């Protein structure tokens, strides 16, 4: 393994103008509010993405950097996610899909998994108490719910039931989700239909497969944009089919540090791309 000097990854975003802030994320007095107001001014409601996907990476590293336990990192991640949901709701984004737990994460230690499950329950609880009633947020969960603990499953079904008719931001939480399994499950459903005789093999096409995917809830199944924190440049098996034409935004910030100004910057970068028109050879 070659020891490397880590160069500044300058390809993580395309900014319409320079934003001046320190690399540790510490703000001088009042500067954060000014930054938020300035970025909000750049955003155009017409080009706002309808569906944003979010990979919340970096809780463990954030805690390690501060000398805390991993659990504290997850806790601050949970709090940050609630604020981000609130911000997205205010900005007029229609759907937000967050990658909470992947099928590969089942390989982590049992203690961490148990803590994560309680964190998810607490998060859903705080959603129910606060955002659902005051901001009309609708909650859904996708993934292999059967692998989750009973209490979490009942909390999910309760929250889904309660917010079914809400018209605000649709928050989708992906727990025990894998993009590949999603497609395979859809193929299984279609295979069953073929077996029963209600469908011919030659009739199977993309649209049919897309309909059977887990994410076919809500108005906008395909994300316009994916945000991944903590500087990793990959997809990690999230929303594979649905991200075919989405813009990616990779941020170097760790997830608990990813605040409103970073979200606004990501949206500004998306809008800059979209309003400039796609000049690329590919959609």
């Amino acid at each position, binding site marked *: 393994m070659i020891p490397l000097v880590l160069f500044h990854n300058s390809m993580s975003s395309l900014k319409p103008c320079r934003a001046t802030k320190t690399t540790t994320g510490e703000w001088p007095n009042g500067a954060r509010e000014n930054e938020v107001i300035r970025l909000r001014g750049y955003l155009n409601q017409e080009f706002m993405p309808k569906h944003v996907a979010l990979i919340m990476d970096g809780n463990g590293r954030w805690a390690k950097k501060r000398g805390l336990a991993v659990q504290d990192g997850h806790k601050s991640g949970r709090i940050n996610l609630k604020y981000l949901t609130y911000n997205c709701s205010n900005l007029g984004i229609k759907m937000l899909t967050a990658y909470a737990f992947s099928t590969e994460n089942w390989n982590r230690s049992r203690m961490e998994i148990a803590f994560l499950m309680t964190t998810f329950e607490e998060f859903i609880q705080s959603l129910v108490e606060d955002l659902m009633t005051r901001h009309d947020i609708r909650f859904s969960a996708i993934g292999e719910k059967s692998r989750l603990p009973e209490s979490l499953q009942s909390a999910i079904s309760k929250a889904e039931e309660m917010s079914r008719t809400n018209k605000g931001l649709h928050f989708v939480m992906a727990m025990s989700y894998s993009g590949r399994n999603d497609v*395979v499950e*859809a193929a299984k459903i279609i295979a069953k239909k073929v077996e029963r005789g209600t469908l011919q093999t030659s009739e199977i096409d993309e649209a049919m*497969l897309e309909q059977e995917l887990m994410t076919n809830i809500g108005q906008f199944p395909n994300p316009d944009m994916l945000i991944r924190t903590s500087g990793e440049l990959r997809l990690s098996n999230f929303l594979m089919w649905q991200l075919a034409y989405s813009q990616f935004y990779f941020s170097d910030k760790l997830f608990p540090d990813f605040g409103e100004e970073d979200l606004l910057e990501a949206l500004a970068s998306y809008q800059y791309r979209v309003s400039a028109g796609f000049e690329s050879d590919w959609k």
Partner: protein
Amino acid sequence: MEKQSSSVVVRLLGSLVGYMRRFLFRFLSVGPIPRHMAFILDGNRRYARKWKMDDRMGYKVGFLALMRLMRCCHELGVKYITVYVFSIENFKRRPEEVQTVMELMLEKIEGLIKEEGILNQYGVRVEFAGNLKLLSEPVRIAAEKAMRVTAHNKSLVLVVAVAYTSTDEMAQAAQECCRDKADRGSQQQQLVELADVERHMYMAVAPDPEILLRTSGEKRLSNFLLWQTSNSVLYSPAALWPEVGLRHLVWAVLNFQRVQPYLHKRRNHLYLSTQQ
């Protein structure tokens, strides 16, 4: 006399550059080298516009860049290269443009598979991934001939994704799976498994790519290798495709080497978790 000496100087310089490049690759080989690299060839038309050429010249320069990069990858030790040449979405462009690309592809394929062509020289096996039924007759025949002629080469596999979209690939794989199960008979209760779907994909000829490089700074996958890139490093330099060079390759490989131990673990976890 002068002409001879200048060509000697040029040759010396050329061999020096080649020596330095091989030294750099040997240095890189201390760490893990990706087995499979995927490229999205984006920016040919913008390059043509920038240098006031017409699109056809832009594509030709892009092809030269592809050959250049293929040589570098071969020297580095990469075993599989996948290139995204034409998407099913691109058929919706103007007919003249589609015709230009198709003609150029036909010309290049036929040039490549000649005996003294670059493919046989370097031992490159060509595979065409995609819904080849959508291509016109001469192109499809040339593609199949190329696959046949180079089937014995072992050094490097070049997978050309033409008339390809990942969603179409997955839908076709599902269709093939169902057809398979129907042929096998309905006595046993057989469900579609992940391994079945993977077996029927167009890209089953190559393992999952470790690096995906998309030029011209666009940060999208555009329906390319969605299934296979869940654990690949995505790299998106701002250079247009004809401008891509050795430095982008080196940077991509260095980035890959930085995260490789973690990705290796993740890849094993992905297979373990899907066994359940």
